[in-house]
């Protein structure tokens, strides 16, 4: 195994970059092109008409809002229940802890399509379909395990004396959590929020099956755009908008991206 010279490495990275970016570039270009015949705009020329159409469409705007609502709800839920659970796993051993951890692993890797039917049947009976709350809850099935994993790693990295000192100072568990633990593992909370956000944002199978008539997320709104005469430009513009939050999140955590994995292992 020989070390690759600098030029070779540059070529590899350039090819890799092209492989990642070229399919996306085409999507972005089309989003700026008018793809249907319209008054005043020649077909196939640069225009912002697609983005303007999104702004003027209440359905599409509502879809964007729905997506953001359930993703934020989900992140809040996962952090809220994940932090105490991660603390328990990091600091204590208790009856059935390994079995519980295995159960979480199983639910993390269970494909959503396998759970989609039972969840739909259950949620239809208790009236949690067509609402962002339902989707936010359902996405917990794979996001809670992730948040516990990542946070557990970060909490374990904090020495135990840290807790003991706080308790000696008279802190209760709750005030210790808010005053000491959360500030101490703030980067971990950021990384966790990133992963929960991403996995909830990209998931479509459960989001689709739970929104038959209303509360459609952005991904389903795009599906609904396909028709006999699809406005490809509009579809691509929505796709680009759907990418923006994810890429913004990557930008915010770019320096911690690798760290999240190091600490997790």
């Amino acid at each position: 195994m020989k070390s690759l010279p600098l030029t070779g490495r540059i070529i590899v990275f350039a090819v890799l970059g092209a492989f990642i970016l070229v399919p996306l570039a085409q999507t972005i270009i089309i989003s700026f092109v008018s793809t249907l015949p319209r008054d005043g705009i020649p077909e196939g020329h640069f225009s912002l008409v697609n983005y303007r159409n999104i702004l003027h469409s209440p359905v599409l705007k509502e879809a964007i809002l729905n997506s953001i609502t359930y993703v934020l709800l989900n992140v809040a839920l996962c952090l809220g229940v994940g932090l105490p659970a991660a603390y328990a796993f990091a600091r204590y051993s208790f009856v059935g802890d390994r079995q519980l951890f295995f159960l979480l692993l199983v639910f993390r890797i269970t494909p959503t399509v396998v759970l989609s039917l039972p969840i739909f049947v259950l949620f239809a009976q208790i009236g949690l379909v067509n609402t962002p709350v339902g989707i936010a809850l359902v996405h917990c099935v794979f996001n809670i395990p992730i948040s516990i994993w990542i946070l557990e790693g970060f909490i374990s990295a904090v020495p135990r004396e840290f807790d003991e000192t706080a308790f000696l100072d008279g802190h209760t568990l709750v005030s210790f959590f808010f005053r000491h633990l959360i500030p101490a593992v703030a980067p971990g909370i950021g990384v966790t929020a990133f992963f929960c956000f991403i996995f909830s944002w990209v998931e479509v199978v459960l989001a689709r099956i739970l929104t038959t008539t209303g509360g459609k997320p952005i991904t389903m709104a795009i599906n609904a755009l396909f028709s006999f005469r699809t406005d490809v430009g509009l579809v691509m513009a929505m796709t680009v908008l759907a990418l923006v939050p994810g890429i913004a999140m990557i930008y915010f955590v770019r320096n911690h991206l690798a760290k999240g994995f190091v600490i997790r292992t």
Partner: protein
Amino acid sequence: MLKRPRCRSRPFACPACPAVCSFRLFWADYSCPPQSFDMKQYDNRAWLLVLPALVIVTFVGILPLIAVTNYSFLDLFSLNNPYWVGIEWYRNIVTTERFYSSLGRSFLFSAIVLSIQLPLGIWIALLLQRSHRFVVSTVLVLITIPLVVPWNMIPMIWLNFINPNVGLAGRILGWSGVGFDYKFNAPHTWIVLVVMDTWHWLGLVVVPSYAGISSIPPAYYQAAAIDGASRWHIFRFIQLPKMKTVLSMVLLLRFMDSFMIYIEAFRINAGGPNGATAFLSLDLGEEIQAFNYGPAAARSIVYFLIVMTVAWAFKAATGTRKPLAIEPVR
């Protein structure tokens, strides 16, 4: 046999056993030097802290599974009028040729995808390790972008990309005269799926691998240099063991996700041409969309059992494996 206490040390805190005790929570059977053991406090009140998470997981995971187990024994032509059919749906699934051919195709797809993505991802991570900091962060950000694309848009982006009339790749392929036809030529559909999946998930291999490699202290490489270790030996005895724990996780996630690939494969060619890309989950999706509650429920249970088996095998395999690092550079 004596039950081993858990190993709490993390790789960078425990120079005595690098790469040995990482997934300490449930891979606790590694032979670990005694100084890295640290008994956690035993306290069943910790259940109270886990309870909220468990309640939600029960509600969205366990309860639906119980419900669906019930449905899988019923004929639910209408939900008000269930009719007990016993194991008929299960028998239908495991006695049809279709199930086994789908299973075979899913395994083949996973095998191809893993054998491409794992070596490629590790190779890129190795190249990154010797690169400038700026290059590293650029490549890591770039390679993460496909991970944040909503899953139903990935096939859309690729269908557009390989469209023979407007797509960049499609036009190049048409112009070069390969006769590329992903709609009716089965190998071509497979190529599209594999390339698309690699595009989508390569980041999930590269980022953790890079994280694993970059956590190796420089002293290891210095020691290896003194010993005159070759590049291969450094990879085999230092870098690979250090990446092993992350890689086993990546392997599990990538295997499951590719094995049960659904929305991407469905959108590209809906299992065609002629069922050549009909994977396991596509059969399930078909039944759900046809509202065949009973058979779909039985199929969900069968697939869930497959998932359980894989997870269990994974746990057993990683739990008993002896560490690869034979301490050549202690």
